[in-house]
């Protein structure tokens, strides 16, 4: 992990709701009622599972941005 705190965000305009991220890193992602993914705000620091989910997203909709804690994705 980089020294500065980072958090995961899902670009919900890109998300196609494949469910891959929630299957790969259930601690970090969940599918909302509209069947698109959101990053769980309370998940803690991104880990190896979260990195896998980023790598597997079919539309590369997951990224890391500076910051930590609860924030709207």
């Amino acid at each position, binding site marked *: 992990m980089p020294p500065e705190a980072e958090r995961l965000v899902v670009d919900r305009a890109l998300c196609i709701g494949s469910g891959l991220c929630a299957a790969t890193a259930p601690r970090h992602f969940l599918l909302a009622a509209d069947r698109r993914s959101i990053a769980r705000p309370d998940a803690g620091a991104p880990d190896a599972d979260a990195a896998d989910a980023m790598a*597997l997203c079919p539309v590369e909709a997951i990224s890391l941005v500076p910051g930590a804690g609860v924030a709207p994705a």
Partner: protein
Amino acid sequence: MEHRRRRRTGEIRSFPFPHRDGLDPLPEFARLRRDEPVARIRLPSGDLAWLVTRHADVRRVLSDPRFSRARATRGDGPRVNRTTTLPNSILAADPPDHTRLRKLVAPALTGRRAEAMRRDIAALAGELLARLAPLPRPADLVTHFTRPLPLAVICDLLGTPRSDGELLDGWCDALRSVTAMADARVMSAVDEMTGYLTGLLRTKRAHPDDDLLSALIAARDDGDRLSEEELLSFCVVLLSGGYGTTANRLAGMVHLLLAEPARYERLCREPELIPGAVEELLRYAQSTVSGNLRVAEEDVALGDVIIREGEGVLAVLASANHDERAFPQPDLLDLTREVRSHLSFGHGAHFCVGAQLARVQLQEALAGLTRAFPTLYAAGPAVWKRGLSSRSPRSLPVGW
């Protein structure tokens, strides 16, 4: 602990249900969705399993890690057929093995990479259609268009010869066999395909290139991130998924469009509808009428039923796509419908790795076809494949 009563199931149904030509809704699934959404079935192997037909339940089975694909292919337990094909493939893996395998191919198949291939795919479609135009009519659209297009795309991506379509076609159908052929024939087809791919891998090892097969070989040889069996299984899955499924889907889409000429004419007049129409055709077409079996790793409640540890579950994608709870008037093929949640590419860990590439191909194929052949019509009944896990036309005679 919450008390749940296992639903009294009326009967054990024999699965698969009788074959019907075409891609229209199947009454057996409609009845089960209404009356018995998690139903007991007997598979061709003789084993029992649960058949899951509603959208929410299907999605749940595909995304809940307690329903294991590995348990449905290794060790004891229920099977669709007595023999198991490709126990080392990504389709038969659970996380974290599945994640390791998928990371090797995912970067080559992202939406961005698929978009970068769009122009070449459109050009390829144009070439095939230009070769079709002077042929005697009626002509078979499967032979001249819906098969060669995805074959060329996947072969170019993998870095394999485009010339072996006939061979691949037979093998791909064998891999999809549920009742079409005896287990022994399926296994011999898998052996033949494995032999063919072993030869391809040998050639590619000697002459690596900038393609997906070379990348997988490097992962095997340099990084040891892939066993030799996994490498071979990967090739089988990528070829049969990339080629067979896309070819079958494209042929099915053209069949549905020509079955009601107004549908085809509408896309000719309004080509901007094509991307949305592809999603609706993916939803509507009752293609994947069987499924990849999963086995419960512990007791799991699904609707009124408790799936016991070790029991098999078959979630039917085609049925989920016609669930009245998820899609208003599901039996209506509406090319302008806003479809966001069809399950034709699956869901969860095994979501089709080629989905975005398939979408680009299907869109460009229909765009090219409607542009080049605005007067296309069905010149006779399609001939249908039978006894496979998915339904699709074997031939599609067309005139113009």
